[in-house]
């Protein structure tokens, strides 16, 4: 489903120092597979997810989804590709505070598919499935962190995207809520989506089909060890 070859991305730090966030990253994740990327803060995990999800451009390399090259597209074409292929789960949920939980979930349909009433039914089903149906008319600030992330997850999967990208999805959650989200991500993979999870939690690798680690912008196979090498 997802193919990335030779991804490179650098930032100029305030002192003028060049930071290589991505340094020749190759990654391939097929549909139905769950890949977990572990790594320390600043290792480039989030940048990798942003580039894979077309949220920002790479300096070099290319990304393909479903056999279609999607890197280097214009803004609107990239937006269409995101709407067609990608669902995002963010660490800080990124719900829009001025609209209800249900409307937040429906945003995914509004920009990508426009299925109308069918999308609404599906959104309500998802909210019920994740135990937040009673909160559908509430606004994000009225929800707990766990509830917000479950709503955000419903938004991410409303369109059944073939690629699901999760950036520290349990970073702001307690263990119980974190487990709910990790289980849901595994379930999406079992349902046929390509799922990539970036996390610092060791338990995120449970059930993963592939585990990687990011070190200084490079993607290496295997989880980190105490010595910092691959296992």
């Amino acid at each position, binding site marked *: 489903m997802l193919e990335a070859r030779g991804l490179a991305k650098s930032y100029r730090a305030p002192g003028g120092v060049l930071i290589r966030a991505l340094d020749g990253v190759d990654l391939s994740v097929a549909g139905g597979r769950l890949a977990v990327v572990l790594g320390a803060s600043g290792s480039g995990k989030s940048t990798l997810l942003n580039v894979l*999800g077309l*949220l*920002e451009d790479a300096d070099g390399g290319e990304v393909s989804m479903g056999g279609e090259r999607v890197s280097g597209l214009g803004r609107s074409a990239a*937006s269409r590709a995101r*709407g067609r292929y990608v669902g995002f789960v963010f660490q800080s949920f990124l719900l829009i505070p001025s609209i209800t939980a249900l409307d937040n979930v429906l945003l995914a349909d509004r*920009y990508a598919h426009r299925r109308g009433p069918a999308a609404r039914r599906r959104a309500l089903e998802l909210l019920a499935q994740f135990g937040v149906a009673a909160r559908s008319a509430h606004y994000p600030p009225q929800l707990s962190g766990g509830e917000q992330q479950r709503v955000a997850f419903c938004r991410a999967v409303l369109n059944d995207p073939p690629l699901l990208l999760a950036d520290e999805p349990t970073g702001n959650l307690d263990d119980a809520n974190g487990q709910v989200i990790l289980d849901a991500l595994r379930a999406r993979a079992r349902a046929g989506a390509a799922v990539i999870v970036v996390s610092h939690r060791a338990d995120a690798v449970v059930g993963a089909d592939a585990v990687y680690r990011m070190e200084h912008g490079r993607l290496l196979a295997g989880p980190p060890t105490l010595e910092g090498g691959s296992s």
Partner: protein
Amino acid sequence: MSLIKVLRGYAFTIAGIAIGVAGIVALGAMAERIVRFIEGGDRFVLGQISVAGRGMGMGTGFTAGGMLPAASIRAIAQVPGVSGVQAQVMLPLDPSTSQFMTLTQELVLGVDLTVPTPNRHYPALPVGQGRNLVAGDRRVAVVGASFAASHGLRVGDRLPLEGEPFEVVGILQRTLTAPDRFVVMSIEDARQQWIAKDRLLRTVIASGVAAVNAADLNTGAAVGWRDGEDPDAVAHRIADRVSGVNVQIPSELSRLLRSSTAFFSALLVGIGALAFVIGGLSLANTVAAAVFERIRDFGVKRALGASDLQLGGEVLGEALAVTLTGGVAGVALAIALGTAVDGWAARTGQQLFLFSARLLGGALVFSVLLGAAAAAYATLRVVRLSPAEAIRRGA
């Protein structure tokens, strides 16, 4: 998502816009009030040729000067191009008040009701309540709206003037010009008021040193011109052919009026410019800030697949709805404040605000256009960011 939900999310923005627009409208309404006064005066003086007697006397306003005897009025009527002459007496209601503040002075206007008023723009003063004066009326008056308000007069009330009781038979519509402070009566009654007010005149008449009869007691006359005549040319002709008169050339009087109100005109330009700059900047800043404040939301929407067009349309639509709501609220706020202030000022016969349709419409159009421009500018800045950058900046 319903419009109400959208607007609820922008409550503070709407409040900010409303305050900015209220400022524009309130200052604009004060400017409109002054403009109406100046325009009204200009329209009046351009509608007639005003003639007064040469010299000095009690006459005031556009009839300021000496006495204009009946013989002069008959001579004016014979001048080619003149269509009609109406003898008038215009006096300060209270001669003890300062004469230099004539803009707000209360005046007695006596008119010869046996001839039609020759003013082309004001053939009859607009009566709001009661009736206008008719030939043969004595000891009755029609009063201006501000005069009635400040003196607490209604139709049917008694108005004592120099010891004589006058019945108020009509109250003029508010014109926001000089007639708002007029007491209009028959010229015969006005002549008696003049005699009562002017000790020197009484002495002269009693001594018999000058041959003065009632018909000579005029402070001026309104002169009309025939169709197709140039009023300035007719005025010059009167000045050439009739001795002992001061003739106001309409275009010169208009110029004089405008130069004497130049300070107010400059003040208006200043007030208008200030209102538009302050209110406009406040509005544009509020709208742009509201868009930038939601930069993270726009990043999220882009991440969910929103195109430039969808996002731009959405932001612009919201900005228009918010600006229009804020604009209407601002107009309502300004009208409410202006009405309250005018309610207080009305006790002294004043009106400080004029909320004209052109002002309200202009303020709304201005605010919506400016809001849209500010939103478009902010949106262009936002959509150029990558979704990741927008989310980072909004975090």
